[in-house]
């Protein structure tokens, strides 16, 4: 396994403003956040092999330093449930991307375990010029996008701080479960919030972090999508 610091420094050396998705996932995992298992395939055949190893269903995503809205360019295929289909999907993605963004550099295709349905939350972090590392928590989808229902803390933070962040959002009741659902695993979410805080504290080169979505379950949580922006 590559050290998270090495991944970050390497990206900077290559003049990149952000980590590639598999790098971002790896870095956040190294700081103790559980992630939806994933690996980077260089060829369609390799995508098939990785998919088989991870277990179905999987999602395939294009990885390119030049593409940030992957779905818009046909760079994401979800619900792939066999090795053959994984190879096909990888080929299809490469074809879509070559057609839609002909000049994009392609680093590979991320093959990732599809996360089960659960409660979508967002965990973020940023470096503020006054307070330094700051972490954020909110519920995903309309809660964050429309209602901006999020809470913040200045790092370093304790578990108690992380629990308070979850309590503080207006939609906090959804974390407690509704319509007969059991409450989500807050310890797992706290682990993720603290991982983001540590990532920012230990790496001054990191400017901001979005883990969106993180899927929360009654037992555990996984980071599905990670974005790590580096300082310019």
């Amino acid at each position, binding site marked *: 396994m590559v050290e998270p610091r090495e991944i970050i420094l390497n990206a900077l050396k290559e003049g990149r*403003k*952000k980590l590639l998705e598999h790098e971002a996932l790896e870095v956040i995992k190294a700081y103790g956040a559980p992630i939806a298992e994933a690996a980077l395939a260089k060829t369609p055949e390799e995508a098939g092999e990785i998919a088989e190893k991870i277990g179905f269903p999987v999602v395939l995503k294009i990885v390119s330093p030049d593409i940030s809205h992957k779905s818009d360019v046909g760079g994401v295929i979800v619900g792939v449930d066999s090795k053959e289909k994984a190879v096909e999907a990888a080929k299809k993605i490469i074809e879509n991307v070559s057609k839609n963004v002909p000049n994009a550099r392609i680093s590979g295709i991320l093959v990732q375990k599809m996360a089960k349905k659960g409660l979508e939350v*967002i965990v*973020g*972090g*940023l470096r*503020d*010029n*006054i*307070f*330094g590392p*700051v972490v*954020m928590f*909110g519920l995903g989808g309309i809660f*964050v996008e429309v209602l*901006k229902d*999020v*809470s*913040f*803390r*200045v790092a370093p933070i304790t578990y108690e*701080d992380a629990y308070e962040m979850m309590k503080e959002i207006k939609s906090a009741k959804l974390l407690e479960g509704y319509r007969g659902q059991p409450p989500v695993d807050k310890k797992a979410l706290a682990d993720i919030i603290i991982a983001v805080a540590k990532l920012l504290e230990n790496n001054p080169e990191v*400017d*901001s*972090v*979005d883990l*969106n979505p993180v899927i929360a379950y009654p037992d555990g949580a996984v980071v599905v999508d990670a*974005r790590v*922006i580096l300082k310019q």
Partner: protein
Amino acid sequence: MIEKFFNPNSVAIVGASPKPGKVGNVILANFKRRFKGRIYPVNPKHEEIMGLKCYPSIKDLPETPDLVVIAIPAPKVPQVLRDAGEKGVKAAIIISGGFRETGTEEGKRLEEEIVKISKEYGIRILGPNCLGIYDNWSGVDTFFLPDEKMMRPPKGKISFISQSGAFASALLDWMAYRNIGISRAISYGNKIDVDDVDLLEFLAKDDKTGLIIMYLEGLKPGRGRLFIDKAKEVVQKKPIVIYKAGKTSRGSTAAASHTAALAGNYAIYKAAIKQAGMIEATSFDEIMDLSKILLTQPLMKGRKVYVVTDAGGVGVMLTDALTMEGFILPRSPEDLKQELRKVLPPHCIVENPIDLTGDTDDDRYKVVLDILLPRDDVDAVVVGALPQVPGITPKLADYLAEARKYGKPIIAISIGSKEAERFKDLLEDKGIPVFESPERAARALRALYLYSKIRGVARE
């Protein structure tokens, strides 16, 4: 340390002037009136001002003053500061504006120059572009608003740190008019050196300060975490009531991530205020409401509140307002009801809110408070005594003051005209804070509960 800003034995006032209306004239007059130490006016154009020998330069002073106050045009400040440095001065308040706040290249350059000089000589600087310090104990008063325009408040336990000079002077005037006591007030302007962190550190140790009010626009880059840590220490000794100005989001700054787009300036300050255990006031009214309850009332152990009133409607309003702020208004338990029925006329309502009704007298309040306050299931009492009813007399204020012996918060609301105002003054003189509406009373009590939690006294 910054002690000398507040307690100097000698002070030089550069820019002292005999001309009425001049900043250097008002400041010198302030010091002459109240400061007990030695005063040296500095101005090359005069030999004597207000009966004091005036010196052409700091270099000519017979001693090194503990504090130098500078009130001259910005371009001349660097030279004066250098003179002060040569003389061995360690503390200077720069009142003058004309620095970075102007947004000009020249202003920026001048500010950088004075930063450099202060570092070279090891001079601590308050300002520039500020009102400086009003200290009710030592008589240091660099607020260049004349006494007849800005009243000076009496001595008291509140200290006040303000990023805005205008707000500082307005608040002092407001407090003076209402006879609210002040210990020390500081306006630090551009804060090139002494800032919020230094001032909190000083006020934390200051036994003449019982509560700190802060008006903050923004901290200096990189000072945020230190500010939180320092404030966290301070609030274990005395409460900090903070008003954060400039709440609108910087949102539009091209944000590379979702998180950055959501993180308005205020959102992060709000988090920091909470983490530090400071009490946030969200309006001007609240600054004073929260301050007076925190200054006068003991900490509360829980959220159970009883309302005692002579007006049913006010009781209902208080119930709503308190409940909305997260308080529990328990139904009176059977034993309490029985006890109350024994001492109250049958038409009184012994359910919480306890309604003594419009024909009440002072004594009904007294007996009820004596029953309520010693109980373990009562954490605070809110008295809604409308003074319009005939049976209420000034004696009620004495009863409420007496009830403070139970060591639990007692606050009151009073609504009305002259009589209500008189009643309010009477109560506040005796340490019972009075609020003009149920909502304001409830907000204030909420702040007391929050602070009690921060101090580890209150249960969830």
